C-alpha cells in the first residue's frame, strides 16, 4: 500500500494581532520556508501540481478566501482546492489525494487572522441557520457553554481541574517559541477570571490569535527527494455529528469516537490509552481537553477529571489551542506540533524518543465535526 508523509512544516509565530502583515504575507513566509527546506519546485512534471488551502470566507470577510492566496501558494495553472473547515481536514484531504494515486506531492497552506474581525463570535453566529438558531444569538461560545455545563457534571470536573488545564496550556506555550505570548497565570487568576457564559470563564477560552502555517506532503516513493525525516500519516478518520444541539448528546463524543475508531483501524491501534508518545487535542476551551481525551479513548468515558489529576505530561506540549491558535487552524497546529516532535525538533518541549502521536481537530459548534490523525516516524 502507498504511504504518505509530511516532508516539511512551516509556521509563523501565533500572535494576538499581526497588524504589520497582511495574511498573504503571513502565508508567503511559510511558503518560502517550505521551498527553502525541501527545494521543492513548481515544475509541471516533478514539482507541486496541487495545493490544498485552508481559510474561511467569513473570517476573511470576502468571498472565495483562497482566491486571495492563489498566487502566493504558487497555484496558477494547477490544482488548488480550499477546505473551509479545521485545517486537519485539509491535511486529511491532501493525504487522501496522494494515497489514491491522484498526485504524489501536495502543498497544504492555511491562514486566519481573528484580530481583523470586530467580533469573532459574531462570525460564528453566522455558522447557525437563519431560522431557528441564528436569531437567538447562538455562537460557538454559547454552544460550548451548554456543552461545558453538561460535561462538567458528567465527569465531575471542578473549577480547579479547569484551572489546571489553563495553567498547563500556558506553561507549555511559554516553552514553544511559535506559541502566542501570554502572561503566566496562577490558579487564582483562573478561578476569579470573569464569567463569559457560565461555566466558561475568560481564561477558559482560547484568545484571539492570528497565524499561518504550511506543510509539504509526499508519497513514499519520492520522500527522499525532500527530507531525511519523514513523518508518516498512518491513520485518519473524520465524522460529523448532527447540526442541532438538541439532536446531540453533547457529552457523548458521538463523532469523535467514530473519527478516532477509523483512524485507529487504519493505523492498527488496539489500545489508544497506551499507543501514543504524545497527543495534541484541539482545546478551544479548557473543558474540551478532558472531553476530547474521553472521545479519543485516552481515558474512559466520564473520567476526564481523574485524567487531568493523573497528569498531562504528554498532552498538548505545544500549548494547545487554548494557548492561542486561530479558529480553522487548531487541528493543523496540533498536527504540526506532532510533526516537529516526531522529527525531534521541538526544542525545550521535546518528548524524548517520540515515535507515534495523535493530532485532533474539530470544526463547528461544540465539536460537531471531528478529525483524528495518527502520525509516526
Amino acid at each position, binding site marked *: 500500500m502507498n504511504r504518505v508523509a509530511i516532508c516539511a512544516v512551516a509556521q509563523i509565530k501565533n500572535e494576538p494581532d499581526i*497588524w504589520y502583515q497582511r495574511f498573504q504575507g503571513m502565508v508567503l513566509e511559510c511558503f518560502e520556508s517550505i521551498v527553502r527546506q525541501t527545494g521543492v519546485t513548481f515544475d509541471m512534471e516533478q514539482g507541486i501540481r496541487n495545493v490544498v488551502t485552508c481559510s474561511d470566507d467569513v473570517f476573511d470577510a470576502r468571498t472565495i478566501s483562497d482566491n486571495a492566496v492563489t498566487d502566493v501558494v504558487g497555484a496558477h495553472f494547477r490544482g488548488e482546492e480550499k477546505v473551509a473547515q479545521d485545517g486537519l481536514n485539509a491535511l486529511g484531504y491532501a493525504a487522501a489525494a496522494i494515497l489514491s494515486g491522484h498526485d504524489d506531492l501536495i502543498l497544504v497552506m492555511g491562514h486566519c487572522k481573528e484580530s481583523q474581525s470586530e467580533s469573532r*463570535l459574531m462570525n460564528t453566529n453566522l455558522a447557525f441557520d437563519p*431560522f431557528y*438558531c441564528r*436569531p437567538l444569538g447562538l*455562537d460557538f461560545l454559547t454552544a460550548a457553554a451548554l456543552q461545558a455545563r453538561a460535561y462538567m457534571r458528567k465527569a465531575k470536573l471542578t473549577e480547579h481541574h479547569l484551572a489546571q488545564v489553563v495553567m498547563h496550556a500556558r506553561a507549555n506555550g511559554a516553552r514553544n517559541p511559535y506559541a502566542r505570548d501570554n502572561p503566566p497565570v496562577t490558579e487564582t487568576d483562573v478561578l476569579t477570571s470573569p464569567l463569559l*457564559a457560565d461555566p466558561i470563564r475568560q481564561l477558559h477560552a482560547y484568545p484571539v490569535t492570528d497565524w499561518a502555517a504550511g506543510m509539504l506532503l509526499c508519497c513514499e516513493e519520492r520522500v527522499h527527494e525532500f527530507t531525511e525525516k519523514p513523518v508518516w500519516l498512518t491513520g485518519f478518520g473524520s465524522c460529523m455529528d448532527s447540526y442541532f444541539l438538541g439532536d446531540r448528546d453533547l457529552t457523548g463524543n458521538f463523532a469523535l469516537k467514530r473519527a478516532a475508531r477509523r483512524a485507529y483501524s487504519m493505523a492498527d491501534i488496539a489500545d489508544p490509552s497506551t499507543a501514543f508518545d504524545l497527543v495534541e487535542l484541539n482545546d478551544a476551551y479548557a473543558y474540551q481537553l478532558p472531553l476530547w481525551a474521553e472521545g479519543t479513548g485516552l481515558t474512559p468515558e466520564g473520567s476526564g477529571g481523574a485524567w487531568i489529576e493523573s497528569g498531562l505530561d504528554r498532552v498538548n506540549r505545544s500549548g494547545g489551542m487554548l494557548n492561542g491558535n486561530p479558529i480553522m487552524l487548531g487541528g493543523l497546529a496540533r498536527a504540526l506540533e506532532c510533526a516537529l516532535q516526531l522529527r525531534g525538533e521541538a526544542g525545550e518541549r521535546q518528548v524524548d524518543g517520540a515515535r507515534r502521536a495523535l493530532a485532533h481537530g474539530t470544526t463547528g459548534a461544540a465539536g460537531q465535526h471531528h478529525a483524528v490523525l495518527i502520525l509516526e516516524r
Partner: protein
Amino acid sequence: MTAKADSFIVDGKLALPYQYFAGRTGSRFLIQLRDQKKIQGLRCQTCDKVFVPPRSTCVSCGAKIADHWVEVKNTGTITGHTVIRYEEPHQPVKPPYILALIKLDGADTPLAHIVKGIPLTKVRTGQRVQAVFAKKTTSSILDIDHFRPLEEKPKIELGYSYEALEVGMSASFTKTISETDVYLFAGISGDFNPMHLNEEFAKLTPFGTRIAHGALPQSLIAPVLGMKLPGLGTVIPEITVRFRKPTYFGDTITAIGEVAEKIDARKWVRMELRWLNQKGELVAEGSCLAIPPVPLG
C-alpha cells in the same frame, strides 16, 4: 517592520440583505408559529421520535417524515443552560440572560431558546418552563419571545378516596382545653351562659365549677375528619353526638374517628366517633357519614 502609525486600516463591513427560503417544512413550522401560536414538530414513526425544529427527513433512520406533523405543547423542561454574560451585536437581548435547551412536552429533541423570569443563578436542569409568544411577529423563532417558569398549580394531597378506605382505619386529634378557648368559643357561638364563664355561678350548678361548651370538644373531630381520615376533600353530611361527661378547664381531649362501614351504593363511609379525656373517660360518642374526597375539578 513598519511603525504602527504607518499601517493604514480600512474599515469594512459585509452586509448582505438576503431572503432565505425556509423550505416547505420550515415554512409550515414558522407560519403555524406566527399565525396560530402553535409549535409543531415532525414525527418519525419508525424511531418514535418527534423533531423540533422539524426536519423532513428523520435524523436517526433517514425516513421521509415530512407529512407526519404533530403539535407539541408550549410547555417544556430545561435540559441544559448557560448564562450569557458577554455582550455582542448579534444577541437579541441585552446580557446577562439565560440561554437554555428546552425539551417541549411532546418533542424528543430540545430546542435552544431564551429563558426569562428566573434569577440567573437559580436556573436548573429539570426546571419547567412555558413559551411566551411575541406580541409582534418577526416570522422567526423569535415569535416565541422567550420562555418563563411554568406556574404550576399548588400540589394538593387529597385524603383517602372511598376505594382506599378500609373498615377499622382510625385517626385522632388531641388538645388541652383552656379558659381562653372557652371564652373565645363563647364569643364565636354567642353562648355567654355563666356556667361556662362565671366560676361563682358555676359553683351552684351540679358540676361545681365551670365547664366547657359541649360543642367545643366536639369540634375537635373536625381536624380528624377533614384533614386526616378520610382527609382533605372530605364532606360530612351528617353527624350525631351523645355527651357523656363534662369537659373541665385544663382537660386534654382526644377526638377519635374510625371507619365503621363502607356504603357501596353511595360511596360514603359511616364513622364511629369518640372523645376521651386525659383519664381515658368517655366524654362523648357518636357517629357520622363521610363523603370521601374525589379528584378536584
